[in-house]
């Protein structure tokens, strides 16, 4: 087709896809809300088991990576290809850091006999079990989305390097960025709901 690409349309399509992701996680937040209402003390106890340092570190890592992804778009718009690549690499490293942190966190929990169907969870109060059930489900699904986001950013990185993404044509980068920010957004809510429960 001879027509120029309708950037706004592409953007609308991407935002619509993000809405579906919001609702996808939203279903899990429905469960969280209902169960938090049912088991407030057990949730607080569960929250105490989680490591705030890891959680805060991961929050900061994602926030910084959102900044660098947004900055990479500015760099592309300013035709600073090298800077854009550097920022994207840094963002990917942030994602990797997040995943490594998550690996250690989960590992620590497993070590403390806190995993689905562990003896400790089966013996503890039901709300405590639900807290961790939700914790693993939500952070697991979120982690999956971190991986998908990293794949999208990596693809964008390659396209920037090959000059397929440029100041005239950067929808792919923009949309990958939007996906990445969504991953950050979800974590912004997951963090207080699980790590800062009082």
């Amino acid at each position, binding site marked *: 087709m001879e027509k120029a690409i309708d950037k706004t349309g592409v953007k609308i399509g991407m935002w619509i896809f993000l809405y579906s992701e919001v609702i996808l996680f939203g279903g899990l937040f429905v469960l969280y809300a209902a169960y938090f209402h049912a088991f407030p003390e057990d949730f607080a106890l569960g929250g105490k088991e989680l490591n705030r340092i890891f959680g805060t570190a991961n929050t900061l890592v994602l926030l910084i990576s959102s900044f660098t992804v947004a900055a990479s778009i500015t760099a592309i718009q300013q035709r600073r290809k090298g800077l854009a690549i550097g920022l994207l690499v840094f963002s990917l490293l942030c994602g990797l850091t997040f995943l490594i942190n998550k690996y250690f966190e989960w590992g620590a929990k497993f070590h403390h006999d806190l995993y689905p169907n562990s003896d400790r969870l089966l013996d503890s109060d039901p709300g405590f079990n639900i807290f961790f059930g939700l914790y693993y489900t939500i952070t697991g699904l979120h982690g999956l989305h971190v991986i998908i986001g990293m794949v999208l950013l990596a693809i964008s990185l390659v396209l920037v390097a090959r000059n397929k993404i440029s100041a005239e044509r950067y929808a792919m980068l923009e949309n990958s960025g939007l996906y990445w920010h969504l991953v950050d957004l979800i974590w912004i*809510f997951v963090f207080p709901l699980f790590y800062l429960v009082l």
Partner: protein
Amino acid sequence: MNEHESEHILSYGFLAQILGGLVLLTAITVGVSYIDWGFLNVPIALFVASSKATLVLLFFMHIKYEGMVIKVSFISTMLVLAFLISFTFWDVAFR
């Protein structure tokens, strides 16, 4: 066709300021969580989280500079989610 909005470039300094705000809010929410305000802890935490989310949405995700379609549909989506969660409470809160 070049549209004005797509040329809107956010400076690194401005983006860094947003990041600064996000880090500050994170510090606040962590700090607040060490103090027991009873049932208020949850609304406060959600309010701070929503503020952070708003900053990410408006500036990192650029929604402040987008057209009506995206703005309205985004808010509608959040309303749908709000209804899904809150209407469940007609059941859960009154058992």
